[in-house]
């Protein structure tokens, strides 16, 4: 009873603070599920639409995993019944990214459950053109999400640039996913910040590499606890992440907090 009182008081205060701001309603765009109850719980019910989210690749060799995770988030941003063609995803890259991590490969994307026909790929000459195109693209409400892939730490990608992206994303409600490879986190206005690395997969018959697995770290969250970590496997056919069925490695699930509940819930559902 007490708890409910305090949450309603908190909501009222939040609403009041929002009214004090620039007058824009920041809660209107809603959120979408990140494909796993534990992830959703840790970030307040889902990935916020119309915001900037940062995904860092742990190392340059993790380029495949980091970009796949980002694209999967973009895939989940689509409402399930929607086809890829109706609201495509714009993937902005630079020439540098093409050189360092290769060309996006349609058959492989289709294998992940991402329809390559729903992807528009834009390859910009440099980071400045990339950010400019990103700001334009985020103002286009017909896109489901904009993935902005940036290698290294260019000078132009500073707090101001990140603020611009956030404002552009808010103006049309398009989700911005900033994929940073070979870079260290720097101050930004991102709603959430993730670090993605490839994780050993659950082997199939004859010790063959199995389904795509990710080590997911929630490095930062604007309104809530951070520092949580998961090891999850992507289930293409169910369009969701699950805990790997059997893993020798330690899964660093925190003892307390929303992630623990979500994880338990998922395990309960699986078992």
């Amino acid at each position, binding site marked *: 009873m007490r708890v409910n009182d305090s949450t309603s008081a908190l909501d009222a205060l939040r609403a009041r603070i929002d009214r004090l701001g620039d007058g824009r309603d920041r809660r209107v765009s809603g959120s979408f599920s990140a494909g796993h109850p534990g992830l959703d719980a840790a970030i307040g019910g889902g990935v916020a639409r119309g915001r900037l989210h940062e995904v860092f690749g742990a190392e340059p060799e993790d380029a495949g995993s980091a970009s*796949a995770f980002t694209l999967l988030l973009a895939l989940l941003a689509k409402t399930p019944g929607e086809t890829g063609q109706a*609201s495509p995803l714009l993937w902005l890259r630079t020439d540098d990214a093409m050189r360092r991590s290769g060309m*996006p490969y349609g058959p492989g994307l289709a*294998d992940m459950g991402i*329809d390559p026909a729903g992807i528009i790929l834009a390859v910009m000459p440099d980071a400045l053109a990339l950010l400019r195109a990103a700001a334009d693209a985020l103002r*286009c409400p017909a896109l489901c999400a904009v993935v902005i892939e940036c290698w290294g730490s260019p000078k132009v990608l500073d707090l101001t640039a990140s603020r611009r992206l956030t404002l552009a994303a808010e103006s049309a409600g398009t989700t911005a996913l900033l994929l940073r490879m070979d870079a260290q986190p720097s101050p930004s206005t991102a709603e959430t910040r993730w670090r993605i690395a*490839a994780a050993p997969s659950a082997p199939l018959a004859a*010790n063959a590499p199995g389904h795509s697995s990710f080590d997911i770290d929630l490095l930062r969250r604007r309104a809530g606890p951070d520092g949580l970590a998961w090891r999850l496997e992507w289930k293409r*056919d169910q369009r969701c992440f699950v805990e790997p069925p059997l893993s020798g490695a330690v899964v660093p699930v925190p003892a307390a907090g929303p992630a623990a509940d979500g994880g338990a819930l998922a395990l309960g559902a699986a078992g």
Partner: protein
Amino acid sequence: MAEPLRWAPPDDTRDLPTATVEKIRGAMRLSTVDTDALTLGLLPGMTLADARARIPELRVFDCDPHADQDWLERLCDGARRYTPMAALDPPHGLVLDITGCAHLFGGESELVDDALDRLAHSGMRVRHALGSTPEAAHALARFAAAPAPDEASALRRLPVAALRLEEESELALRRAGLKTVGDVASRPTATLAARFGAGAVDAVHRLLGKAAKPLDPRQVAAAISLERRFPEPVARTAYALAVLKELVIEAVGKLGERGQGGRRFTATFFRSDGMAFPLRVETSLPVRNPPAIMRLFRERIDSLSDPIDPGFGFDLVRLSVPVAEALGPTQLALKGGEERNTQGRIGEGSVSGLVDAINTRTGRRRILRLSPCDTHIPEQTQLALPAVEARTPAVWDAPEVGEPPLRPVHLFDPPQSIEVIAGVPEGPPVQFRWRRSLHQVSRYEGPERIAPEWWKAPDGALEGHGLTRDYYRVEDARGRRFWIFRNGLFGAETKNPNWFVHGLFA
């Protein structure tokens, strides 16, 4: 029809004899000379040392054929103000088909005067001739010496060099005593063909107008082309753009009458000094919306590395629609609503609008859509097409239920070379070094053997068609998944097969 001979830089040394040089057969030789140098006795082909010895004050420049070609192309674009049929006649000429265009300028001689005037202003020395065929004009501009009563007799007086034959045939004609075109034309064609080849007969016929060869214009005339001429040159770009906007509205009206929408638009700003600035924009859907078209033009101007320089002013603005496609009539938008048509929205917020804007700003090779291609060769199974062209999204095969990803999400093209240690030469990899870091293979699947497409080789031969590749899906100790292959079958195709990493899995 004009032949720009040489141009001289505008400084106080412009009266000095000038030549360009290039290295021919190990010596610096004059490749072109101007009229001053010609009167002083210099000829193309002379060595630079000889020329310098004779004329010490000779100004010499390096020969730059690419710059010459570029300049000629720009002149050709500028000449499109007179006629849509403007063709290059390399290395030094332009051919304009002014049939039906001369009256717009008050007659043939007025048109010629106007063209010569403009070219003279940009420092060109020009020889020109009018002829009833392109070949006749070409020959008269270069070889006509004395005035003649009519074109036919002028042509007959020309030297055989005007036939543009190969050097040997020309020499043979002269040795046979046939010095002029008239001499050659008076011979029976059968003997001419037997002795000097069919080419000689063709050349004579074309020169004398008995056979026609169509002109190959630099740009094909568009179906819709509108222009606005100014009595006085306009020096302000903003005004020229306002005029362009009027033209766009006019063109959209014409497109509407035809039930079409434009896919490509070209605006050309002709400067009074004869230069022309073409701006091209392209849309992914047929458009009949003036603000959208103007937005693309502005985007294009913003992305130019050097802004449009009006110089002494523009005196002609032309808008053409080279590519138009069917587009149904549009419903008038309700107040506050967005314009819609049967083929999707075209407006500020639509995907096609965004694609067009990025396409205009950065070029068509930079905004792409992936499209599948029916082949087994991994790097050829997808095509990256410009998004403005790939309008109907491709259909990709759905993966098999329950299978892990069998193809990587990133593909390296070309594949990246790696050092591999394998247990046996034809066996799976145990560890490999890629980008200076060592990866221990903990899991692998393979090989998946992909053979070169021998059935596409003309004689079914495998040689020269690449090697058979053995692909492995491998996972290293830290969980990174790679797609690597061994190029060539050990023993059968190669002694020491190389390994490559071809892709990264998620």
